């Protein structure tokens, strides 16, 4: 594929707001996971909650979009000059030539969960102030961001569970390549809600302690929330110093099970190979792999098998979900942003919380972060329904 520049990017997770806070947290091996209450959830687990989401206020003209997910989107857009960079791009090429493609798994469903507690006693009706279209609907976050940035190009939400905001990079690349747009806002926003907390609990996939990807004692995932965005444009002939490019996207399906990965990691392998092929790179060209690494026993085992079959056992890998939690539909964009930080600042982030890597897993799992002059990084995102997406990013 033709490389695209990340003209601007940003991420807000439980590690902090924006690139600098995230970089500092990753470099000092911090984790944002903590045992805390969310809403009325009574579950024995740790969460990656973003501080201050409840205090965010949307602009008055967009008040009808108010819900936790759009507040988190608003908070994310305000970091690192991202919204200004998008406005400048729209001024260059017209708002109608900038697309918006965002990933989410549950959008603003928390609003509906809360509304179901306020149903009319006689009729069962939901309260009059509940706005389904602008909060709960899967498109809500994309509609909000498109309105907030005054964009007028094509837009949609990709909702493929935990690969959603990896796959938006592919959608944007195709749209730019087809000549329908000149630039795209991509990203992912997913926020804490009861559906995912109680849903993963029903599958017995929640860890009690902060999640420990690749650890021999790993026992499940920790749920987080995040907003991450990138502005994609064709790579200029003379990229700016430190520029990061999207070089390849690979997508595949497991065709195996709705909520369990292919045990041999076959779908994951196809996605990684397709991403390498799109970037015209060999496995040896990749200096670091940001794993999907959810810390469930079967996910990490399947991904390890896939990674080692494609790359062998010597490519440094880590999962940053011990730091951020699993941000579900936002994970692809969060980890693409972390990959971009790793490339720009020349470091491999440590897999935090992991004490003793599982001896049954063979990938080179990085426990201590280190400096490394990275040129190319691969990031994996996989999800329910057997959906897989791998991204290759590189120094432009």
């Amino acid at each position, binding site marked *: 594929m033709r490389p695209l520049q990340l003209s601007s990017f940003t991420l807000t997770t439980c590690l902090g707001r924006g690139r600098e806070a995230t970089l500092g947290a990753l470099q000092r091996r911090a984790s944002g996971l903590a045992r805390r209450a969310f809403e009325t959830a009574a579950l024995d687990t740790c969460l990656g909650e973003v501080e201050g989401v409840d205090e965010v206020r949307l602009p008055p003209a967009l008040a009808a979009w108010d819900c936790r997910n759009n507040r988190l989107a608003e908070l994310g857009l305000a970091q690192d000059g991202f919204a200004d960079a998008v406005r400048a791009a729209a001024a260059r090429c017209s708002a*109608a030539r900038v697309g918006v493609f965002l990933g989410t*798994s549950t959008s603003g*469903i928390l609003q509906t*969960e809360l509304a*179901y507690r306020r*149903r009319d006693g006689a009729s*069962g*009706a*939901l309260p009059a102030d*509940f706005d*389904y*279209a602008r909060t709960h*609907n*899967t*498109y*809500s976050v*994309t*509609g909000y961001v498109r309105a907030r940035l005054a964009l*007028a*190009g*094509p*837009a*949609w*939400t*990709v*909702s*493929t*569970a935990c690969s959603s905001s990896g*796959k938006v990079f*592919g*959608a944007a*690349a*195709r*749209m730019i*390549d*087809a*000549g*329908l747009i000149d630039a795209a806002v991509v990203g992912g926003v997913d926020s804490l809600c*009861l*559906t995912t907390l*109680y*849903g*993963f609990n*029903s*599958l017995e996939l929640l860890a009690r302690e902060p999640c420990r990807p690749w650890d021999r004692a790993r026992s499940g995932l920790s749920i987080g929330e995040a907003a991450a965005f990138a502005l994609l444009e064709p790579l200029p002939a003379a990229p700016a110093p430190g520029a990061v490019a999207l070089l390849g996207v690979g*997508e*595949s*399906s*497991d*065709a*195996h*099970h*709705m*909520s369990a990965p292919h045990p041999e990691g076959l*779908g994951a392998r196809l996605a990684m190979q397709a991403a390498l092929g799109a970037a015209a790179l060999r496995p040896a060209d990749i200096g670091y792999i940001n794993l999907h690494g959810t810390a469930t026993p079967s996910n990490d085992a399947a991904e390890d098998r896939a990674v080692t079959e494609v790359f062998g056992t010597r490519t440094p890998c880590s999962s940053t979900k011990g730091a951020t939690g699993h941000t579900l539909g936002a994970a692809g964009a969060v980890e693409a942003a972390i990959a971009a930080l790793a490339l720009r600042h020349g470091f491999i982030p440590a897999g935090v919380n992991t004490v003793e890597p599982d001896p049954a897993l063979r990938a080179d799992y990085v426990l201590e972060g280190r400096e490394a002059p990275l040129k190319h990084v691969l990031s994996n995102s996989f*999800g*329910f*329904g*057997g*959906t897989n997406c791998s991204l290759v990013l590189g120094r432009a």
Partner: protein
Amino acid sequence: MSALAAAIEGLALLGPGLPDWASAHAVLSGAQPYVHAPTAVPVPGLLPPNERRRSGLAVKIALAVGAAALAQTARDASRIDTVFASSSADGDTCHAICEQLAGSERLISPTRFHNSVHNAPSGYWSIATRCMAPSTSLCAYDASFGAGLIEACALLHARGAPVLLVAYDAPYPEPLLAKRPVRDAFGVALLLAPQAGAGARARLELTLAEGAPDTLADAGLEALRRAVPTARSLPLLRLLARGASAAAVIEYLGGPHLAVRVAPCA
């Protein structure tokens, strides 16, 4: 503005009073009047019996129209990229989860949880057809059909291989139905190919466009087009039913919309 081109090899529809493409063809070409009737969703033959029982309405509609479009061609389902587009995830599943979460027990069934994801039809489809090719699942609220059509054509352009587009709506029950009054289940599937070969029915060209979207003269069909996001496809399906070279504007985001041009294959 660049145009994206595709050849339509397969076409299936399932909607209220429109049980299949043959009856839709008669209505859309003007040979038969439109009479509304509840959508009759068939049992999905692709799924094994236990999966049939556990899958929701969204999965049933999506698999029914996807399989019907594919059956019109000699293509191997296990090798075809797919784009699923819907204005929401499965309505009944979402309602059941929200009811349980509003109660004191909050016991969600694991199957119900994995069926609640927007990409559940894509997952069941890939399992049923043993297809490991890329698949995406989109939502753009009322503009979901347009989003799916653009993405399907862009994917075809990028990969030069056939793409199956499956657009569908599975309505919510009350009380969400009152807030989102999509009352009819609807599904449309298009099998698109890069070249107009022997099996092609029509050529399609797509561009982004400003201007007013086409409406339908029949009041019942126009009401359906406006009420059900997937039925925004009806002006395109009418062109295909009439079988002449013609153009239409499909309602997408209110700006841009989609200009489609259709030409029959000899």
